[in-house]
């Protein structure tokens, strides 16, 4: 585990960035849902925003844990990014379903962009590199190489 120090630092820092971006994404969804609009094309969604804030708290916990114990931050960062990506996938499914329904019902203003409006998707894109990096790290640090000679 000697040459893993480098990516560690980057991934740890990236966790902090993702924590922040996820929090902002959640906050924007909640504010849009409460009727305070910023003119951004973000889906107003109060429960969804709360979930994003929850995920940002888990990322935040990862950052705090990283200061003392290493496996801890990796697991929090891994699970949070996994959930974020899974939920982003779910959002695409939900919006896709709504869009398809709108098209089939022959609504006039069908906006293809609306499929990308959930804040989950934007927060998710930022978390993709983190997920890839951390999942590799997770397996490396958890299975000891001396398991089977």
């Amino acid at each position, binding site marked *: 585990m000697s040459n893993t120090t480098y990516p560690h630092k980057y991934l740890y820092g990236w966790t902090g960035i993702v924590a922040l971006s996820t929090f902002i994404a959640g906050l924007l969804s909640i504010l849009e849902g409460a009727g305070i609009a910023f003119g951004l094309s973000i889906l107003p969604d109060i429960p969804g925003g709360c979930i994003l804030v*929850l995920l940002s708290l*888990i990322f935040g916990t990862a950052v705090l844990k990283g200061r003392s114990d290493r496996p801890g931050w990796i697991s929090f960062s*891994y699970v949070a990014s996994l*959930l974020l990506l899974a939920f982003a996938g779910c959002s695409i*499914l939900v919006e896709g379903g709504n869009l398809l329904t709108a098209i089939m019902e022959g609504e006039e203003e069908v906006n293809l962009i609306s499929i990308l409006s959930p804040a989950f998707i934007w927060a998710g894109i930022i978390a993709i590199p983190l997920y890839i990096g951390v999942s590799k790290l997770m397996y490396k640090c958890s299975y000891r190489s001396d398991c*089977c000679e």
Partner: protein
Amino acid sequence: MKDIRILLAGNPNVGKTTLFNSLCGVHQHTGNYPGVTVEIKEGKRQINDHSLFVSDLPGTYSLSAFTPDEQVARDALLTSNPDAVVQIVDATNIERNLFLTTQLMEIGLPMVIALNMSDLADEQKITIDAECLEKNLKIPVVRIVARNGEGIEKLVDTIIRVTEKKTPVDYKKIEYPHSVTTHIAEIGNYLSSHVSLLGKLSPHYAAIRLMEGDEHLEKMLHDQGLVIPFIDKCDPAERDGIAEDILLARYRTSEEVTTCAVKCSMGAVMPADLIDQVLTHRLFGIPIFLSCMWFAFQITFSASNPFLVGIEYLFGIFTEMMNGVEMDPFIRSFLADGVIGGVGSVLVFVPSIFVMFILLSILEDTGYLARAAFVMDRFMHSVGLHGKSFIPFLIGFGCNVPAIMATRTLQSKADRIITIITIPFMSCAARLPVYVLFAGVFFGAAAGNVIFFLYVLGIAVAIISAMIFRRFVFRDEPSPFIMELPPYRKPSGLAAAVHMWYKGKEYLKRAGIVIFGGVLVVWALATFPVGVEYGSVDSLAGILGQVFQPLFAPLGFNWQLVVGLIFGFVAKEVVVGSLGTLYGGEEMLESSLAADPTLSPVIALAYMVFVLLYFPCVAAFGVIRQELGNWKWTCIAVGWGILVAYIVAFITLHVGSLFIGA
């Protein structure tokens, strides 16, 4: 031509069902939640001149039979006299698996061990010396990979070979402490003069079972008037001690065999441990779970919507085609209102049921559901329910019938009864069309909130009911929560789809026939006696509604709504169908409801509340009766539902009218 009957035994979640599928070439769903197989499944395989009849037993850790599914397994092993027992042993967890082996060996049936190298064992590069295992236990061991069918042929050959052997089995002996051995011999000797009472058990094995505390067997022998030496003179504390000695001896045996056979052990920390630390976190655990549920519901509704629109579109075309053809008005009514209406009522809820099933099976496959049960245990415990009750509740949102069957994993009878009584308050997918109709007509833009309120109300009523039953009927605490957590797995889309198809098909078969039949009966009641206006007051349905209507007058329901409720006993989907019939056609239903002067938003709300709570459906009723095993509790369960529904609907009507203008 020779018939061979074999039993598949093993711990929960070791790949029994997967092996069963590849043996018999069927597609039973394999879960990643302990206790997926709750009843015996039977299958058949033809090899040359042999017919192999395979029974897949529920997973069990031992033969002591605490839960109903374990009892099923034990009874099959002890009484059905199979030609051979095949135990599936999970390579990642040999020691615990061998504990069951030590018990199976003592029954004295021909045995084969199928050593399953699961994905996980590969991943962890576990190496097992199968020959050493075989030599030690003196039981044939066949290495298989259940998931891709590797080694199945060899397993079948070994099974045939074992059953053709004429010599009695001679397995490794378990070394009990000397005192235990002498008592076993003493009891065994005594029992050999009463062999006829023992059924398929050998006297020696019966003696061991008595020593380890098989109350079932003991009671049976006492009922026959036997005085069992030693056992009957023992005090309970001493007997507990003996039972523990036997347990320990078995563990020592399995440990000893494991040490010789397993060549490699694991590292200190495993990925699953790390993931568990987050998913079952004391603060994050419940919010994470609620988030998953929120998305599951979102997807269920939005992803099934396009299918619904498509189905409606198709039915529009059908109706138009019908209108273009000349025919007798009676036949037209039968086809349009009866047949098409009936098929329509079945089809409208199919997409959401299927989506619900696929989401649940994906969640289960990942191994997360068991963690969710753990996370929810504290909360469930505080309202008088068991943590494991939680999964049946979740399934209940899809359909109450499998939910009630899933309560078999609960050990204590009180826990099971309370769970079964409260499951029908979980709003199953079939109730949704009723809400969609009434909330849509009477609450417009607030419909979504009203529907959400109904789901929450159902959960609240379930919680309050559970608390009442726990406090006033069963005064004990819920039994302690102990559960194996399955390994995490990547869910496979294909497996989930197969599972969805299988479950959905089963559901369609059962519900489809009932609902379709129900709608046809409604049509007949609305049409006859011949000559009356369709669905009018003078039809049979109208007369029926008017007879019962006074009962529901305090709730403000008119006779059409009452007829809907009566048919709702058959299935909740029929409610919308029958109202459609009574209000002159499904297409005009929304406008006719809105125009009916006897209805108002508050009455609609009370009606939805009543539909939510009063009675699940005949299919669920049948399963409740089957699982509770007696009429007393079945009647209490049903009576409680109707009582609660009446009270809550009454309160809704009167409190609601304060807030919602008449």
